[in-house]
């Protein structure tokens, strides 16, 4: 017998089982353990199945959330997986890294009244279904009739993988070009293992390969091939450019070129992609600081500081110029970092990196800040307090200030229009760039954002690329 809404309302939100903070901050195994099935079913039962389900509109890829929650509640997991996978090609990834508290879970009626209610744990349940599906659900990879079109996807991050999957489903011959040696983009080099294990990405990539998608690694578009070469010489009918925001931003303060100063990109790439935490079993080294200072307050800063802790830092500090309330990182990440013993130094702004005689970092000079009037972003602007300079002793400094547009591909592509920040301009509806047949999406179009928004772009672009191709004759056919 189905539960009444009143009974549903009585069930409290289930906390995600996590590993002990003092155990997990020494290794790179995943922090969240995932719901066991009974807990998942009970959590799913909290959904009131609103007629006008706000959560669906809160989701950038439009998952039928009440639909799959109902199936989880009923224990019908293969049906739940089918609903989930029909809208979201990478649920194992988004279930882990999506900011649900700003999307589906924010608009959930169970979240009301604000501050008192607790939304249905959609993200945790998405992860539960995805993990179950990976082990038990055989995706019906229908190989459709080949369309004869050849499509290239540049970049194998979340936008590229999603777009490739959607295009392959429509029968196009898809090739993904990846610059690094391993597909996955930021999912592999950026997001650490303890948040998103690589085996989940490998599984998604394997699934794409089964669908006939070809993945060429070590191919840098702009160098190995240029976009005109791909279109004219290699016979691609359409391209999707999803190269991400791969340009580290530095603070431009004195001392940034000392040894022991990293961009978060370099630090995380060394650890996540190259496995520097296994040195010397892996060949890539990394500087193990005893006192590590990470500058920034976003998700990447949290990843970097938690990584530093796991690499054995006695003190892993986070230096942020505003207060905790203004941090752009997800609440879950901030809470995890606090539990793991990360030292938050808020309202501090670095002014100078101090070096020793032999060129190593020995400290970070900061100035204290106070919050003034709100600025353009709506957050209160931090203002330095004069004469409040002090020095934080540290031997490694990691700058996690966000990422800009990497100019490598745009510079090698004549006729590609960019905006004033160097991101690629496109038609907001079709995502087509100034070059006909070349589409874009993800961070290189919108600036550094989230995995799910990139995936949303991949999906939208795939639809419009398909529409665009319908007006064309395959390039290979005329040859």
């Amino acid at each position, binding site marked *: 017998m189905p539960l009444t809404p009143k009974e549903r309302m009585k069930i409290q939100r289930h906390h995600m089982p996590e590993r002990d903070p003092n155990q997990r901050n020494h290794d790179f195994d995943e922090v969240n353990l995932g719901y066991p099935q009974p807990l998942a079913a009970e959590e799913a039962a909290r959904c009131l199945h609103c007629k006008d389900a706000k959560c669906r509109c809160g989701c950038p890829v439009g998952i039928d959330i009440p639909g799959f929650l109902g199936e989880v509640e009923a224990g019908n997991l293969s049906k739940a997986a089918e609903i989930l996978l029909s809208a979201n090609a990478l649920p194992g990834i988004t279930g882990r890294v999506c900011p649900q508290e700003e999307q589906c879970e924010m608009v959930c009626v169970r979240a009301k009244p604000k501050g008192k209610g607790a939304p249905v744990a959609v993200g945790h349940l998405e992860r539960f279904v995805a993990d179950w599906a990976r082990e038990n659900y055989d995706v019906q990879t229908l190989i459709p009739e080949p369309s004869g079109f050849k499509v290239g996807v540049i970049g194998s991050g979340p936008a590229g993988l999603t777009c490739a999957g959607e295009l392959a489903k429509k029968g196009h011959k898809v090739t993904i070009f990846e610059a690094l040696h391993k597909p996955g983009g930021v999912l592999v080099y950026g997001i650490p293992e303890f948040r998103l294990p690589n085996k989940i990405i490998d599984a998604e990539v394997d699934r794409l390969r089964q669908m006939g998608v070809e993945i060429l690694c070590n191919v*840098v578009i702009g*160098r190995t091939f240029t976009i005109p070469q791909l279109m004219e010489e290699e016979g691609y009918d359409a391209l999707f450019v999803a190269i991400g925001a791969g340009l580290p931003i530095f603070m431009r303060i004195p001392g940034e070129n000392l040894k022991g100063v990293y*961009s978060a*990109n370099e630090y995380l*790439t060394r650890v996540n992609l*190259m496995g520097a935490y296994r040195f010397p*079993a892996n060949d890539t080294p990394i500087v193990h600081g005893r006192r590590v200072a990470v500058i920034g307050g976003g998700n990447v800063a949290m990843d970097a500081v938690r990584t530093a802790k796991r690499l054995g830092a006695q003190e892993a500090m986070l230096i942020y110029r505003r207060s905790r309330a203004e941090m752009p990182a997800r609440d879950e990440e901030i809470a995890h970092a606090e539990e793991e013993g990360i030292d938050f130094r808020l309202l501090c702004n670095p002014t100078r990196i101090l070096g020793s005689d032999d060129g190593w970092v020995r400290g970070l000079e900061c100035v204290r800040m106070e919050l003034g009037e709100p600025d353009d972003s709506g957050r209160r602007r931090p203002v330095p307090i004069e004469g409040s300079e002090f020095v934080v002793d540290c031997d490694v400094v990691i700058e996690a200030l966000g990422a800009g547009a990497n100019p490598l591909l745009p510079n090698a592509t004549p006729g590609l229009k960019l905006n004033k920040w160097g991101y690629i301009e496109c038609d907001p509806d079709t995502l087509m760039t100034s070059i006909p047949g070349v589409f874009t999406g993800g961070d290189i179009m919108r600036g550094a954002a989230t995995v799910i928004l990139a995936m949303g772009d991949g999906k939208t672009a795939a639809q419009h690329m398909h529409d665009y191709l319908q007006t064309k004759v395959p390039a290979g056919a005329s040859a």
Partner: protein
Amino acid sequence: MREALFVPPGRVRPRCARERRAWLGARDIPGLGGIRLGVIRPRSGAAKRAGTHRGFCVDAETAFVFTREGRQMYKILDTKQLASDVKWFRIEAPLVAKNRQPGQFVIIRLCETGERIPLTIAHSDAKEGYIELIVKAIGKTTIELCKKEKGDTLADVMGPLGKPTEIEKVGHAVLVGGGVGTAVIYPLARALKDAGNYVTSITGGRTKELVVLEQELREVSDQVFATTDDGSYGFHGTVADKLKELMDDKERPIGAVYCAGPVPMMRAIAELTRPAGIHTIVSLNPIMVDGTGMCGGCRVSVGGETKFACVDGPEFDGHLVDFTELWDRLGAYRDQEKLALERLQHQHECKCGSH
């Protein structure tokens, strides 16, 4: 065995007992025309986690190597020992060869647990689809690379990377290569010669043994000078001493100097040409990770500005480069490099899949 669907070319021989067993125990794969597949399972936990087990596809004539993910590996077509610790490689990499221009480099990785290191492309042939590298065995990765022979493979070859050299008509172009830096100036000599310049090449080393590529340079230069610090061969002195001699020759004024080698040598050359105002281009070799401008690890100060050598370089105006900082940053991992080398020397046991 899904891997069998991604069979790239590349011929290998079994190199140890475990590989030979896998070779012999290979089984037929239906539908692949008699190609057989054998898989070597990793022995250690670390190798398992890193996914370093390799597979073989074998038929009577040819054998193929591929990684666990079924990616193509890059085959070594030929090798030649140039000096006791300097080796020349010809590697199959058609996509890299296609667009490559002088001055560009590749990033290679030997195996699944390997590091990414940049190496200058000494020569390439787009039609034949190969590139040539010259490697000096200094660190763990380069020592392991120099043990490789014809028929072996590399896990990754990515490129071509970096800005190509601006090849201009400068009149008299002098190229200065120190040690294995000669591999960097060799392709430039060829390109500058083709552009109609009078090309003088200077290649130097501490002793005779360390002077490399002299013969090859002769084919693409108008004149070549070999120098040794100890006088055991050619000109007795450093490359800077020889360059000074050329600068004093008023009959053939120097249009530009192109220089590659150890940092102290490049600094000496830049200091030498600075008073004379001779345009000096140096090719830098900082520590790199990705090679696409994504990590910023290779940053160098040029004229007070921070540049990324992988995308803004690797060539810069030698009079503007902060060599002290470059030299210092190159030593960031000295302790780890020493440890890796020591471990390599103590490793006698074969660990399958990672050589």
